[in-house]
């Protein structure tokens, strides 16, 4: 009972200098720190401490760090958590040690399905949500033939798979797919293959620079004129890196957009002031879930993981980020998602004005239903 | 077939891109002799040498060693079979001690060279033999010196000791006295004479003094082919040799000087 070691210590594990650093790196640390400050810096009279580490996008580095935090630095929970590979390894260590994983940015849906755990919390989005959000309406609107340019690693494969399911469930057809190694600089070969396939939609099942580069090449080779190009997972920094004249008009799904309403704008302004750039969805998610965690600690009167977890699932998340939200028993936070269109150059006020929200998707329509075996409330 | 030849080349040819450096050479090296290979620059001496030691592969022809065809053997195998060459410039292991240099050579006949689990002490039983060899070449006092620090002539001596450690039947020496001062030339020449007992030596040498003193038989190469062969007197009297190599008019007598003792002897070597 009470607070172990007389403090609540949160470790932020993120990519500080690699390709996802803009998506959840130093920014995630800032977001968590903001949450702690907004919470008042202490809980149940004990100080809250934030430490952070760079996982270098390596599972071994990340899991070793988490192990060290738990075994010798009294960390109570780990937030951030960017790349699915790292998160997979880190959550194993956390679960073994009964510590909570606050996953804000990783895309895989495995953490609440195939490798679900009573200590995983997955907050912002996942591959299913973005695939459903983006793919379903397009297939239903008559774009039946799909081609995938997929990042050749677990995340890309997972995204391609759920998207393929969505296409097929809606009587569409996948006419081809090509797996490009992570960090491919030249996509022209793949774009030509996509072009030759005669697809209506070429879906980019990749992330970060890969998305930016593949889209750029698609535009250059005229693919954007003969087919729709859909970025399945696009974070705001990536969207900013795209040439507005080619990206303009592209539809995608996101868990958060800074310019949605006054509440998001207010928080985002504070974030930008400290971080120097507008928040990506993982940043906002990290803030939101840290807040929720701390509230649960306060409500539970302890930082014991099981008690806190129970409280987190019992309390309803509700803030500028989590709209119409519930934290399911499997650890999946289900909330409103947004269909957005990338703005054309003439629609933009400035460099931060990139998305136009065109639709709000209810969480339970885009996230997969809970698997019975992951319903920890029952077992 | 009265003579015993340790090494024979049959119609040896080496052609480099559009250039035949060795052209149909038939050499016969008599067992126990000191055989010298001389000839103008670019005649193909070094190339023949490299062919004999397998640093080059013949374009055509064959090599016979003790009657056995060795044309296809690898360099290291040739060495183990008893043909060992010395190099033009100090081929020593600079950061090993003088003793270790010789020991490495002795070790190659020991059969424990792949034993990485044994302590190096097992090599100590080679020390006596190594010291003997060093004494033979006058290096006994330097056994523990670092080889790098030896003066040039001593390095040559060490190299010969190392070569002897392999107990070669046939030693190949490429310009053993090149770049040496007169003193060292003497020392090395004496050494060669001494170690030639019981083995065969084939050498390339431009220093005629050394050749005349040591060689039992001389083969003169020119433009890749054998010009003539014989002992020093015969060869040096051959007008073709004198024109192509020695560089004196055919009517002047050519003879190597004995030890120069006066300024008279300080004249160019080609002069009488």
């Amino acid at each position, binding site marked *: 009972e009470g607070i172990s070691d007389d403090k609540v210590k949160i470790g932020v594990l993120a990519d500080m200098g690699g390709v996802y650093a803009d998506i959840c790196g130093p920014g995630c640390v800032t977001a968590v720190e903001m949450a702690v400050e907004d919470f008042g810096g202490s809980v149940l009279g004990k100080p809250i401490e934030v430490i952070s580490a760079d996982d270098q996008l390596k599972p071994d580095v990340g899991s070793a760090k988490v192990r060290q935090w738990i075994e010798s630095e009294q960390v109570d929970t780990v937030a951030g958590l960017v790349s699915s590979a790292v998160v997979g390894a880190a959550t194993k260590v956390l679960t073994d040690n009964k510590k909570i994983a606050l996953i804000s940015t990783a895309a895989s849906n495995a953490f609440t399905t195939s490798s679900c755990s009573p200590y995983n919390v997955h907050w912002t989005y996942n591959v299913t949500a973005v695939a459903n959000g983006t793919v379903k309406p397009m297939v239903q609107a008559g774009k039946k033939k799909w081609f995938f340019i997929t990042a050749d690693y677990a995340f890309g494969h997972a995204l391609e798979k759920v998207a393929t399911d969505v296409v097929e469930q809606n009587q569409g057809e996948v006419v081809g797919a090509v797996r490009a190694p992570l960090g491919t600089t030249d996509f022209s070969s793949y774009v030509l293959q996509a072009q030759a396939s005669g697809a209506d939609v070429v879906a980019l099942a990749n992330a970060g620079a890969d998305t930016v580069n593949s889209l750029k090449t698609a535009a250059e080779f005229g693919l954007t004129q003969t087919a729709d190009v859909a970025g399945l997972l696009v974070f705001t920094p990536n969207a900013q*890196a795209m040439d507005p004249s080619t990206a303009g008009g592209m539809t995608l799904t996101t868990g958060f957009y800074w310019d949605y309403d006054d509440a998001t704008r207010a928080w985002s302004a504070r974030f930008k002031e400290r971080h120097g750039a507008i928040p990506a969805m993982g940043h906002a998610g990290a803030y939101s879930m840290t807040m929720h965690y701390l509230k649960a600690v306060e409500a539970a009167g302890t930082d014991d993981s099981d008690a806190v977890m129970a409280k987190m699932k019992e309390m309803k998340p509700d803030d500028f980020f989590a709209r119409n939200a519930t934290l399911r028993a499997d650890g999946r936070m289900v909330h409103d998602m947004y269909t957005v269109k990338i703005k054309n150059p003439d629609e933009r006020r400035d460099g931060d004005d990139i998305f136009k929200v065109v639709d709000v998707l209810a969480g339970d329509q885009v996230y997969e239903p809970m698997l019975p075996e992951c319903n920890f409330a029952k077992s | 077939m009265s003579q015993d030849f340790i090494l024979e080349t049959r119609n040896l040819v080496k052609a480099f891109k559009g250039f035949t450096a060795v052209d149909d050479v038939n050499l016969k090296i008599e067992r126990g002799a000191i055989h010298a290979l001389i000839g103008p620059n670019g005649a193909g001496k070094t190339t023949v040498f490299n062919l004999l030691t397998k640093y080059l592969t013949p374009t055509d022809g064959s090599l016979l060693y003790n009657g056995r065809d060795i044309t296809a053997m690898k360099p290291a195998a040739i060495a183990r079979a008893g043909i060992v060459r010395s190099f033009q410039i100090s081929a020593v292991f600079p950061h090993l001690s003088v003793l270790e240099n010789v020991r490495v050579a002795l070790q190659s006949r020991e059969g424990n060279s792949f034993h990485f689990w044994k302590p190096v002490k097992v090599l100590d039983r080679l020390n006596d033999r190594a010291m003997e060899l060093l004494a033979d070449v006058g290096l006994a006092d330097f056994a523990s010196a670092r080889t790098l620090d030896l003066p040039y002539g001593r390095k040559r001596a060490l190299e010969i000791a190392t070569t002897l450690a392999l107990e070669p039947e046939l030693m190949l020496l490429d310009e053993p006295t090149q770049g040496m001062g007169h003193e060292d030339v003497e020392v090395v020449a004496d050494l060669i004479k001494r170690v030639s007992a019981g083995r065969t030596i084939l050498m390339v040498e431009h220093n005629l003094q050394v050749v005349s003193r040591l060689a039992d038989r001389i083969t003169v190469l020119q433009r890749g082919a054998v010009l003539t062969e014989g002992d020093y007197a015969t060869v040096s009297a051959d007008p073709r040799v004198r024109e192509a190599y020695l560089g004196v008019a055919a009517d002047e007598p050519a003879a190597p000087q004995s030890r120069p003792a006066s300024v008279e002897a300080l004249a160019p070597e080609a002069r009488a």
Partner: protein
Amino acid sequence: MATFLGINLFGLFGQLLVGLINGSFYALLSLGLAIIFGLLKIINFAQGAMYMLGAFGAWLALNHLGINYWAALVLVPLAVGAIGILLERVLVRPIAHEDHLYSLLLTFGIALMLQGLFTHLFGSSGMPYAIPDELKGGTRLPFMYLPDYRAWIIVASAVVCGGTWWMIEKTRLGAYLRAGTENPQLMQAFGINVPLMVTLTFGFGVALAGFAGVMAAPVYSVSPEMGSNLLIVVFAIVVIGGMGSIGGAILTGLGMGIVEGLTKYFYPEASTTVIFLVMVIVLLLKPAGLFGKEA
């Protein structure tokens, strides 16, 4: 559509052409590396970072100085070359006489620092750089749509590579360079200012990477990581071509672009590995590389 053995020939032509375009970048980059290695015996692991500097240079020039693509094509390589000269004078020179391994580590360190610095300054997501208006659009070939800019890449790279090759292999200056690599001391005793020559050569090799960077900016995203991924591939190309062979680096660069392009078509997962497979095979069959002189 024309097919042969079940392969779509038109598709294949497209892939070959695309491979050639990529190969043009490889050729430029490996040429720079080959000059620096072949002539100065410096293994410049910072070459990738210089390529990245070239691309960022173009971006900065456009966004902060209002310098357009065409001017950047000239100015940025000069600037990158100047940075190279500075690096050579200040950092590389002091270890010029040490084992090659050290120059490799040093330049690797420089590359890390530059990459870290740019990530710190500009983030990791990359910057957009638009294709210059003059080269927007493209030509419809029977088998593919060839963007004008891509055609320009082939032309520009061919001119620069060819000119460089000619200069090194066919002129007196080139002979000085080649000889200077082998025995700088003696060249200096012949009256040639070798240190200056080394510096300028390094600068030139690096400027080539900067040039490639500017060329790349409109087609690949301008990001801090863009060079590091490319580097060991380009290095492999230099080795396959035969270290020290200038023509070898160029031809192998083009060739490997094509090999990689075909792999992307038939077995994309292996596209980043195929070059190493080629390297193993080549080195085992031809120790000094395809165009290298055997020792």
